[in-house]
Structures are given as structure tokens and as C-alpha cells.
């Protein structure tokens, strides 16, 4: 393998991919980046077996070939190169020589024989989707994803094809960590072509990489295959292995109707919660929200820190209801909404409270209270 490539292109690829490579692994080859030189491009492939990435960058290929080199060291070297043009050359199948101006490195590497084969090209009929729309849906749903590996079936965003109002086809993304839930639905005519069947769980790391792929693109292509999601932009492609297992029956925990509801300015509530939150600690995490006629009172009390209380005037005529919440759950939910006001719907301090976007009936947050 021998090629010439612009430093900026090479750095773009290595910068993007080195974080995907798994550093601590029982399979050392995947802590390397796979370099493939062919037909005017250098492909850079990284994988941790869950998320795999391939970026293609224009290069002048003198000799086609493949090689693997440590992801971390390669990134550290490339980002330090002073010159614009870089020459990469594999010598004796054991080293990668890197030349840029008067700089010379010879990096240890190994041939790609054991590098896992990733089915990036398994599906040719990917569906073109609006990148901004997918990005927005992810932003509105990813915050509730579980980080508890023991509850693997909720450690990702659930993608589900649904029928919306007036028989419109739509894509829904749902996430939960068992204490709260976020759900967003958007119209998508060709949702069935995605190959989702009843729905698939895209793991959290995959979601993170999907956001990066979407960045600055107008359109991307998506398609689900057996056990995987393929996402493709102009010169990058992701293969994300799906979370196996059944997403819980989220419909069962969304209250069909609630006895009480109150509309609150989104930013006002956010500010108030932010002001009360410093009183809470990991040990005393709960913050109280009391809704009573004409006002909402947010307070926290912590024997280790003190107390805080603030009142917001609202239009509300119902009974006084007090609920305890993890303040972060409320803040995350408010941040996911964009309009000026949210609507809280609730029954009592022991049942789920929904947080709705005043202007977006296709978004829904559900937060389970803390018992005070």
C-alpha cells in the first residue's frame, strides 16, 4: 500500500474513527484502524463490534492495499503533522511509514487478516431521509435512554413504525430508563421501506455516532437489516448492531388521561428548577413540585445543605397536588422541548406525570415521581 493524501482529509477520517475503536478489549485487532486503499480513496474502518464506521477520503493511490495500525497512536501522530501532504506506505507488511515534509514516522502495525468483516454494504436499497428530522427526533428522545447495562433492552432508542392521525405513516423514537420516558413521532411516508418490522432498539453508542454522521448533512440514507442499522452519508457509513431483546410495553405506562393539568412557561420552570437544584444532592435528590390554585411551588430541602423554595404563578383551578421529582429528569425533559410552554398532566404523587409540548402533540415526556 502506498498513497498520498491531504492532511486535513486524513485527520478528518482518523479524528472521526479513532474514538470508535475499542481500546480495552480481548480482541486486540479492533483497537486498530483498518486502512484500505483503492480506486482513488482511502477507506478508514473502525469498530468496537457494536458500532462500526467506514469513512472514504480522496487520495492518490500509488499502490492499492490494506493494513491496520493502532487507532490511538495513529491519531496522535496525524494531528501533530505540520505539512499539508502526507504519504502513507506499508513496508514489509509490518510497518506503516508516515511522511509529511521533513517528518518521518514508522509505526508498528499488523496485516488486516483478523480484522472482522463488517456488512456495511449488506443493503443496497437504503431509504433517503431528512437528516435534520432524524437529528431532531434523536435529540428529543435520547436523554431518557438507560445507562444500566443490566437492563440491556432499554439501553437504546427504540425505532418504531407507527400509523399517525388520518392513516399517515410515521417513525417513532422512544427511550426510557425505567423512571422516565421520552417519545417523539414524525411523519415519514416511506417508513415501511426502512425494514423496521415491529421496531428495533438502536444502542446508545450507535445513537451518538448517528448524530455525528448527520452533522452538516441534508440527507442521509437509513436501512435496517437483520440485527443491524446501516446509516450512510456522502462519504461515511455506519453499521450499528441492534440491541437484542424486546423493548418494554411503553404504551402501558403512558397515562391515557390525567385528572389535572397545568400550563407553565418552559424557560421559567427551567430556571426555577435550576435555582432549586443546588440544594439537592445525590443523597437528597428529590425536589418537590406542588401545584395549587394559582401557583406552582418548587422546593427542595436537604439536611446537608438547607432549603430552597420558589413560586410560579399559573392558571390552575384543580386540587393541590404535591409530587417529588429528580430535578434532572424535569430539566432534561424541558430541554428537549422547543416551544414557550409545557403542559404538565398529573394525578397524584405516586403516578406518572406527563410533560407535553404546547405546540407539538407528537412529543411526550413521562416522568415517574419520587416518593417523598
Amino acid at each position: 500500500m502506498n498513497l498520498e493524501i491531504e492532511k486535513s482529509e486524513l485527520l478528518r477520517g482518523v479524528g472521526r474513527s479513532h474514538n470508535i475503536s475499542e481500546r480495552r478489549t480481548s480482541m486486540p485487532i479492533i483497537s486498530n484502524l483498518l486502512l484500505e486503499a483503492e480506486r482513488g480513496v482511502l477507506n478508514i474502518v473502525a469498530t468496537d463490534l457494536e458500532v462500526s464506521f467506514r469513512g472514504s477520503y480522496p487520495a492518490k493511490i500509488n499502490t492499492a492495499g490494506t493494513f491496520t495500525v493502532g487507532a490511538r497512536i495513529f491519531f496522535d501522530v496525524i494531528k501533530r503533522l505540520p505539512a499539508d501532504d502526507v504519504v502513507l506506505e506499508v513496508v514489509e507488511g509490518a510497518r506503516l511509514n508516515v511522511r509529511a515534509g521533513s517528518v518521518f514516522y514508522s509505526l508498528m502495525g499488523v496485516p488486516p487478516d483478523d480484522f472482522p468483516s463488517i456488512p456495511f454494504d449488506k443493503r443496497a436499497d437504503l431509504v433517503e431521509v431528512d437528516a435534520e428530522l432524524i437529528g431532531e427526533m434523536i435529540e428529543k428522545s435520547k436523554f431518557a435512554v438507560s445507562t444500566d447495562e443490566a437492563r440491556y433492552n432499554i439501553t437504546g432508542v427504540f425505532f418504531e413504525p407507527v400509523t399517525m392521525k388520518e392513516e399517515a405513516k410515521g417513525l417513532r423514537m422512544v427511550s426510557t430508563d425505567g423512571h422516565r420516558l421520552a417519545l417523539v413521532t414524525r411523519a415519514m411516508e416511506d417508513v415501511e421501506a426502512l425494514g423496521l418490522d415491529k421496531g428495533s432498539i438502536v444502542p446508545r453508542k450507535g445513537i451518538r455516532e448517528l448524530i455525528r454522521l448527520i452533522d452538516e448533512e441534508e440527507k442521509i440514507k437509513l436501512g435496517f437489516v437483520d440485527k443491524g442499522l446501516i446509516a450512510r452519508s456522502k462519504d461515511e457509513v455506519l453499521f450499528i448492531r441492534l440491541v437484542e431483546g424486546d423493548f418494554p410495553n411503553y404504551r402501558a405506562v403512558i397515562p391515557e388521561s390525567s385528572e389535572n393539568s397545568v400550563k407553565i412557561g418552559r424557560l421559567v420552570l427551567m430556571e426555577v428548577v435550576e435555582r432549586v437544584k443546588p440544594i439537592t444532592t445525590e443523597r437528597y435528590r428529590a425536589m418537590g413540585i406542588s401545584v395549587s390554585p394559582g401557583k406552582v411551588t418548587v422546593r427542595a430541602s436537604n439536611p446537608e445543605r438547607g432549603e430552597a423554595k420558589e413560586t410560579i404563578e399559573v392558571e390552575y383551578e384543580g386540587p393541590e397536588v404535591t409530587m417529588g421529582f429528580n430535578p434532572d429528569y424535569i430539566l432534561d425533559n424541558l430541554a428537549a422541548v422547543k416551544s414557550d410552554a409545557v403542559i404538565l398532566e398529573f394525578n397524584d404523587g405516586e403516578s406518572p406525570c406527563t410533560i407535553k409540548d404546547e405546540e407539538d402533540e407528537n412529543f411526550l415526556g413521562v416522568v415517574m415521581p419520587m416518593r417523598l
Partner: protein
Amino acid sequence: MVLEDARIIAHVDMDAFYAAVEVLDNPELGGSPVIVGGLSQRGVVSSASYEARGFGVRSAMPMFRARELCPHAVYLPVRMSRYKEVSQRVMEALGAMSPQVEQVSIDEAYLDLSGTRRLHGPPRDAGRKIKARVLAESGIKCTVGIGPNRVIAKLASSLAKPDGLMVVDPEGVDEFLTPLEVGALPGVGGRVEEKLRARGIRSAGDLRKVELKKLYSWFGKFGEVLFRLAAGGGAVGLKEYGGPKSVSSEATLTEDLSEKRELKKVLAERARQVARRLKKKGLRGRKVTLKLKSADFTLKTRTRSLDSSTDLAADIEAAASGLLDKEDVSSGVRLVGVGVSALEGAGLGLQLELFGEPEEKKRLRRLEEAMEEIRERFGPAAVRAGELLNSEE
């Protein structure tokens, strides 16, 4: 977490504790004056039953003086280890009432009852429950004082003794303090009391009328403390959270182990102990920590966060065991510990589950509870989990 505005602190003081333990162990002493202390000529009284106090005997009084005042009393030596035993039962009983207990001496503790209204009802009911529970579990009577802070709680208990219960509401603090002699306030005695009396300040009510500036010029920094005391303030919550920040259990191994399989058996037993204590205290935790001390005494701790808090031995064991899997133990391990932190429970706010507790967890909890009950009744070896049983011999 409190939604009632005020903090609620209880001061629990055992009545004539050492003497009461002696009566508990020797019921025939009931009703007679009992004096516990150093019995030699130079000894002092450690504890006197209320019958003995009727003759003017007080703790810290020289023993010969006590003998003069109450020659017919039963005089007994101090059996500290026995008192500690009973004290521990008292503290366990208190621990069941609130996760925040600060033990200040062998026979005295503060409890933070804030936010326990749902659990225990209004403060007076909580006080009654404390008294009943302490009596049931230790056989000894106590006095409970409840107030918005430690000082008021302690003053209330001192006034309600013996076998009493006094609750001072936040609104009632002024009225409660006004008639109290300044000498009753904590830290006021001897010279300070003299100085105050010399200036015509006899009660907390008098003290409240004195400007802070003056108090400061008389007593310096302590003047500020006095000012706050008189105003009914003072230390609000518990000094230190006696209530656990974590619950853990560890074992030093009889020989160093380098087999994960062996270590996991030890972990399982530690996890069971931790779960048992969590369940007893009504707590659950969201973080599981594995502690390993290697043969060369280097200490490692590894922590895993769970999404949902747990008090199940099975969950704790699984998390700790998962952490162990990632560690290299080939050089030998001499100590293994398991801890659970980020606690939730009574008074701390318990995050409710959106999907409810899975059936499987409910079953596990019932199973673990049943096993603990059998162990309590028939001894620790009466029942074991299958894995541990296989490990025998």
C-alpha cells in the same frame, strides 16, 4: 426530603440507662432504688434509677455521698459490655424509624424525622412509635423530645423525663423557651450563667431581649451562639449523618485467594449481608462497590451504577461479580468487600418505577426475605442459596 417546611428533629434519651439495664436483667430489682457505679470509696455514681433519684442521688455524685443519702439501695458495678449490647439494640430500633440517626452517647441519639410524615404520621405519633419500638426491642424506657432543631429537641426531652414525650412545634418555640432558666441552655453553666445572672438575665426570655452586640462584647463568639439559642435557633439538622451513606460488608480471607470462582462465593455471602442490612433499614442503593485488597495490601475499589436502586442480594451479587470479572486477581486477594451507596429510602426520597417492579424481582425479594427469616429463627446455617451449598466441603 421534606415537603413540610420545617425540619423535625427528635432527641431520644434512655431513662437511667445503666440502672434500667440492671433491672431488665434482674426483674426482682424493679421498684427498688438501684445505683450503678464505681463501688470503691472513691467511686462515683454512673447511673441511678428514678427510685434512687427520689433520695437525691444523681449521676457523677461520689459514691460515699450516695450511700449516705440512700443506704438501702442496691449497689451494682458497671457492666459496660452488657450496656453496649442493649444500646446497640436501641440504635437498631431507632435506625428502623429514620435513616438518619446520630448517636451521641451510649444512651442518647438524635433522629431526623423530616419527611417521615407519610411513614410515621405527625411528630407526636412518630414520638410514640419511637418509644414503643425502643421498649419492644430493648426492654428499656426512653424519653423523646421533638423540635425544629437539636437544641429544642434536647431541651424538650430533658423536661419530659422520665418515660416522657414532648413535642415543640416551630410556632411554639418562643413560648417554650421563654420561661426556661438560662442554665438549661446547652453550653450555659458556671461562669457564663453567673455572668448572665449578675446582669439580671435569668431566663431564655430575658436573654432574648439582649442585643447581639452586647452578648458579643460579653462572651465574644459564644455571644452569637447564645443569641441564636435564645431565638430558638441553633444547630438545625444532625451534625453528621449517622444514617449510613453506604452499607457495606467485607471479609478478610483465611488464606489469599486467586480463583475468581472462590472469591465469588465470598462475594455472595457479603452481598447477602449487605442486602439484609439494607432491607432492615428500609434502604435501597443505586451504586455497588467492590473492594479488593490484594496479597501485597494494595487496595482497589470498583463501582458500578444501577439505573434502579436495589436491596436484593441477587442484584448486589451480580453487580459485584461483574466488577470482579474485569479485575486481575492472579496475585492473590486477602480481603473482599461489597458496598452499596447512593441510598434511597425512608426520608431520602424513593424513585418510583415507571414499569413497576418486575415480577421476577418481587419473587426474589420474597425469597430473600423468607430465607432471612429462617436464618433468624433457626440459625445462620439453616438455609443457603444453592451455589453456596455446593461450595461446602
